[in-house]
């Protein structure tokens, strides 16, 4: 038996114009990156289209490139150290802002965020002038300090956000049940903000890993990976650079996704 229903009314409007516009925006954002990935597999010696055939030669070349490997290792060291500093101080700062009412608390917060608000050139020049007035020789350490400065607000953000969501009653409950301050932090507060710390650290890491502007001013003898790529772009432009850039892109995307996942898992 079939029911004789009247013609169904369409109640869902298809937003064609909106779909089209969205595709356009995404194309604007991601076509250049797609092109880069495309070129990295292109069997042609110039960094440009048209596509002449698929090859992984540029990747092989990149892996065999000793200066490139060295700069990658430098970048990893710099990013790791800068991340540790930024996250450590970010955590302390977040705690100070969350826990204590002190004179100049808001100014303190704004001051901490200045390094990411200021143009990189300003931060770079300022730090260069400062380090040379101290008589510090430029090295990977000066880069680490520079990256730690703008990494701090990046790490601070998610940690402070999470801390402000922390129910004070959990802390009071722990004290009430006999825990001393250090035990309260370890057993109750830290597990609550762990995901935010990881996420802040991963963000600081990716930012440091591909930073150029501040790094230009603070680089001594050893180059980081983005500096190496930048240096080569001016002399020999080959798709090897595109291959390296694609690898870095993949790693960065992976880290950002990882940080989002870590946060989502704990807060979901």
């Amino acid at each position: 038996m079939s029911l004789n229903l009247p013609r169904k009314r369409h109640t869902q409007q298809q937003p064609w114009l909106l779909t089209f516009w969205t595709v356009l925006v995404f194309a604007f954002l991601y076509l250049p990156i797609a092109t880069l990935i495309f070129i990295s597999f292109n069997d042609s010696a110039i960094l440009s289209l048209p596509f002449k055939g698929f090859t992984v030669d540029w990747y092989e070349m990149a892996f065999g490139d000793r200066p490139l490997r060295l700069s990658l290792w430098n970048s990893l060291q710099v990013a790791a150290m800068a991340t540790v500093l930024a996250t450590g101080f970010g955590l302390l700062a977040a705690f100070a802002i969350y826990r204590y009412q002190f004179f100049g608390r808001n100014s303190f917060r704004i001051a901490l965020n200045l390094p990411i608000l200021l143009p990189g050139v300003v931060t770079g020049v300022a730090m260069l002038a400062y380090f040379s007035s101290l008589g510090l020789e430029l090295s990977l350490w000066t880069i680490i300090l520079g990256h730690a400065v703008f990494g701090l607000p990046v790490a601070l953000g998610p940690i402070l956000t999470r801390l402000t969501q922390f129910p004070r009653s959990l802390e009071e409950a722990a004290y009430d049940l006999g825990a001393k301050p250090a035990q309260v932090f370890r057993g109750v507060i830290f597990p609550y903000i762990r995901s935010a710390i990881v996420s802040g650290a991963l963000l600081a890491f990716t930012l440091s890993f591909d930073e150029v502007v501040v790094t230009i001013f603070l680089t001594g003898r050893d180059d980081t990976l983005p500096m190496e790529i930048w240096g080569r772009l001016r002399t020999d432009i080959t798709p090897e650079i595109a291959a390296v850039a694609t690898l870095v892109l993949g790693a960065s995307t992976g880290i950002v996704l990882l940080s989002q996942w870590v946060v989502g898992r704990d807060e979901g």
Partner: protein
Amino acid sequence: MRDGSVVYLEGVSKIYPTKAGEIFAARDVTIDVQPGEFYSLLGSSGSGKTTTLRLIGGFEIPEYGSVWIGGEEVTEQPPYRRDVHTVFQSYALFPHLTVAENIAYPLRIAKAARAEVTERVEESLRMFQLEGMGDRRPSQLSGGQQQRVALARALISRPKVLLLDEPLSALDAKIREEVRQELRDLQKQTNLTFIYVTHDQEEALALSDRIAVMHNGQVQQIGTPKQIYDRPASLFVAQFIGKANFFNGTVLETTGETAAVDVNGTKIWATLTGRSPSIGNAVTLMVRPERVRLGESAKTAEADNQLSGKVASVTYVGQLIELKVETPVGSLTVTQLSSTVDLSPEQSLSWNANDCILLPD
């Protein structure tokens, strides 16, 4: 008093600075809680009841006065040095720990042996009907179960005193009464001292051995539920607890424990609770709606106060009927059992001087 009490607050004040000036969240609070007592702090929001509880728990340090627990002064001691545990209104269960880990927390902090911890947590899970839930997260439990976990956690290291901050307010009305009875039984079984904060007078009356009624940071009256209900010490307490009829009048004469008061030209006999007032003083009288007799029983009773009135409205509230009766002393609310009530429009009313309280100013 200090020696026998398990908790003793002596003239405690807690002050919060605000832009408008200092606010006394608690003002000169003195209470003594005896061992094994179910003691309630009853008041509306802002009355200072929660502040008082936090002063006992050690979450606040008072500006004035002192706090004693088990005969020792702990006024400035942090919470982890006080032998009291709290059941928080939000339960404050640790979300990253399982139910069993939550309950075990105080023992782990105290570095108890692993075997002992396991054994006592098992015992506790059984006692609080949480068997098989030890491995769950608090978020996977119902409100009532979470509350039992909070109780289990607070009791596992056997504190001297349990502080409860409106523990039933987050529960559905249906299970609230059930849990209320469980709480009372638990307290009787364990013979622990409970200090219980609530805004719900019915809860306080049903559960407590003694109640401290609080208002504006101050203790208004301390007494058993019966004393608080039958002999309120002030107009505030009389209005706050239960329903009541109030009349204003002037004192005609006093005779020891009773006084005759002129209310709109009618002489009403009332019981004195405080100092004896002078003749001619303006006073307020109170009588509870269920203490007023109606109909035939009112006429035959040898009651001190006899009136007649006209029924203005009748409200059916299940077991009880509530009547508004117009009388020479004003409109009176009277409750009667709905099964036996006489609903004729003209009514005789009466009540004893013993049930009519002259409220001190």
